[in-house]
């Protein structure tokens, strides 16, 4: 009798910590409040579907970037994940076509971004974008006003923007005029505005061209003359990501080039300290483009509960749910129906409303070369090589010409290695 009690107790302990048929495990990372919003939505789903237990694992972004790919290679992982390296890992996504209620609905509303998420030539439904992002600039309006410097117009070039920010820097005695996140993706928008094209005729990376070289030279000069915040790019090696958001939040720079995903972060941290607004992307000779991208919610093909996964994805992809998620997280949606209707962002912050308007407006100016990159599988090695070598030039370790040679060699080596 006593032994039976012990066995029963042990079994109960094991039951409480083991995943079962009907469980759906979601790996999720957050930039802002979206973790709380999605948990709220999933609680509602579980109330309506008592047979399905959805477990939300809130993890750091680094876990999604570094650990998830290893789990996937091993044929394991969660049932659903929120990811940003959607193209590189596309072989691991589940085709939702047989498990969602209405594949045509998915095709109509999310189909424009499916090629970002699936292997080249594939026709699967891999998931949907929880947010569309677009790179763009933010300006500290208060600093510009205090300096008496007019904010450049929508059509202003990069040079005009940096000159204006430089005047604010001098007037307000700032450490730097502006910052760009330490990321190859981030500088790709201005590269393309200066005429760059990364994709070669054979869909392999093309040697870096005059557009990329022109903007790289400007970046290096802006660091040398003290207008670009040196710390962001120089104080790390390799492909390490560094954001310049803290300097902008602390009012130490007049202009910050990052992207739409920063809106909620800036709103919550800046509060009423100063007025700010998003301004889209400055122009180059070829375009005034930002870089599109985003985070996708994808189902993993190693799931043992595909039909439950289909139900969860159907729920989260519903128009009313996407709308609520978008309005509460202050994200740009991918859902065509939501985009066509009115989005009532849940904020009283005028800076946020104006910024989201600016990003929506800028999304109409995306250059074809930029629009093609999210669906291109070799973007990552190009971004990595750019950030590694250009920051070496900024640190005084090599000359720009040497860096250009190294960038091409690095990309070639990565492509050759990945093709083995």
């Amino acid at each position, binding site marked *: 009798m006593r032994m039976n009690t012990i066995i029963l107790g042990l079994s109960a302990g094991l039951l409480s910590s083991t995943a079962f048929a009907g469980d759906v495990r979601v790996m999720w990372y957050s930039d802002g409040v979206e973790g709380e919003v999605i948990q709220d939505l999933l609680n509602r789903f579980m109330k309506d579907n008592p047979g399905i237990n959805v477990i939300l694992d809130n993890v750091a972004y680094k876990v999604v970037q570094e650990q998830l790919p290893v789990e996937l290679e091993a044929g394991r992982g969660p049932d659903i994940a929120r990811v940003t390296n959607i193209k590189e890992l596309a072989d691991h996504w589940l085709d939702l076509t047989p498990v969602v209620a209405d594949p045509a609905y998915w095709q109509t509303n999310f189909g424009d971004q499916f090629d970002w998420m699936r292997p080249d030539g594939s026709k699967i439904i891999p998931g949907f974008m929880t947010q569309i992002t677009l790179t763009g600039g933010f300006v500290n309006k208060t600093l510009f006003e205090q300096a008496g410097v007019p904010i450049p117009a929508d059509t202003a070039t990069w040079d005009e923007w940096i000159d204006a920010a430089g005047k604010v820097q001098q007037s307000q005695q700032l450490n730097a005029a502006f910052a760009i996140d330490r990321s190859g993706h981030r500088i790709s928008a201005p590269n393309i505005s200066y005429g760059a094209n990364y994709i070669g005729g054979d869909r392999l990376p093309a040697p870096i061209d005059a557009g990329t070289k022109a903007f790289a030279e400007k970046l290096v000069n802006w660091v040398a003359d003290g207008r670009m915040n*040196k710390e962001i790019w120089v104080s790390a090696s390799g492909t390490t990501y560094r954001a310049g958001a803290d300097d902008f939040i602390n009012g130490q720079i007049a202009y910050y080039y990052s992207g739409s995903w920063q809106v909620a972060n800036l709103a919550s941290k800046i509060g009423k300290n100063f007025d700010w607004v998003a301004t889209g992307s400055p122009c180059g000779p070829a375009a005034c483009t930002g870089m599109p991208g985003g985070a996708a919610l994808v189902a993993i093909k190693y799931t043992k509960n595909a039909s439950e996964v289909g139900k969860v994805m159907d729920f989260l992809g519903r128009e009313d749910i996407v709308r609520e998620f978008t309005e509460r997280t202050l994200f740009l949606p991918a859902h065509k129906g939501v985009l066509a209707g009115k989005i009532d962002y849940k904020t009283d912050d005028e800076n946020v409303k104006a910024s989201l308007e600016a990003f929506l407006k800028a999304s109409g100016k995306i250059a074809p070369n930029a629009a093609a990159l999210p669906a291109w599988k070799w973007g990552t090695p190009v971004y990595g090589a750019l950030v590694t070598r250009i920051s070496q030039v900024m*640190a005084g370790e090599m000359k720009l010409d040497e860096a250009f040679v190294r960038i091409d060699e690095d990309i070639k080596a990565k492509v050759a290695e990945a093709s083995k």
Partner: protein
Amino acid sequence: MGDVRNGIATRAGAMLLAPVGWLANVFDAPLRMLQRRTGSNGMAVFFLAPNMLVFGIFVLFPLVINILYSMTGGGALFLGDRTFVGADQYGRLFSCGSYLDPKSCTEDLFWIAVWNTLTFVVLQVAMMVAVALVTALVLNRELRARSFWRAVFFFPVLLSPVVVGLIWRWILQRQGLLNLMVFEAGGTPVNWLVERNWAFAATIMVSVWAHVGFYALILLAGLQAIPKDLYEAAEMDGTRPMRVFWRITLPLLAPNLLVVLVLTLIRAVQIFDEVYVLTGGGPGTSTLFLTQYIYEVGFASLLRNPGLASAASILMGAVLVVLTLIQLGIARRNEQRGKTR
């Protein structure tokens, strides 16, 4: 009263040892039988087997796997899915115009990391041993609140390397504590983590700060093991303090110093965590060390190259083995010299 206490202690000891005695009795007969069948050598194997099994699974097996990985290419995770490339990864690492000039190498970042690591090892090991020795000598003196001071020096050893990196980052960053003090003192703030030489010096200083307590403790134990009568005799002879240090303290502390040297050397070659948090390998690549290079090539970059990372780690392991053998050789020679004297 004392007898009562002793009696209680004896009985408590007997109670605690009772299960051990019971276990010994249980295993006594089968072990004797085993010894009769296998002999003394067999028993040695029997007792070593569990340890060797653990060593094999957690050390030898990964080492062999790592060697195999270093001979494969591609981004696949599983060995079976990877392409055999022979010594190509090593060839890539060694493809250089001149090893003294990383720019002439195909894998220039590897050679930058090698030279950075070598410079770091030379400077950090020298500083670590010197600071640990001075600390131990000071802590060995009759100080007021000596235990407190020993704890103060040992405390950073208890901190996680990530915490160490973060604390010093907050102190050394542009708007950090140090620059605030410099500014308050009327000086010009310095961008400690963005200027090459300052950043490199900071990595050395932080790693010494974080680990010196541990090495000082080893040396302190050595100092306390030196017979006091030697110092008393030297004092009676009127020997000068420096001569006492060179003729008594240092020679008798040599075995402990050697242990500290070997451990510091190995730890310095493996440096990663606190530096990764502190400088991220920057500015540029000036604090990019070998372990970070391996980590970035094998894990951090989105298009990983586990083969190249494995080859680099095998080379780093080989260097560590050579260094350890040299140190062991010196230790043995010193031991033999000591015996012949």
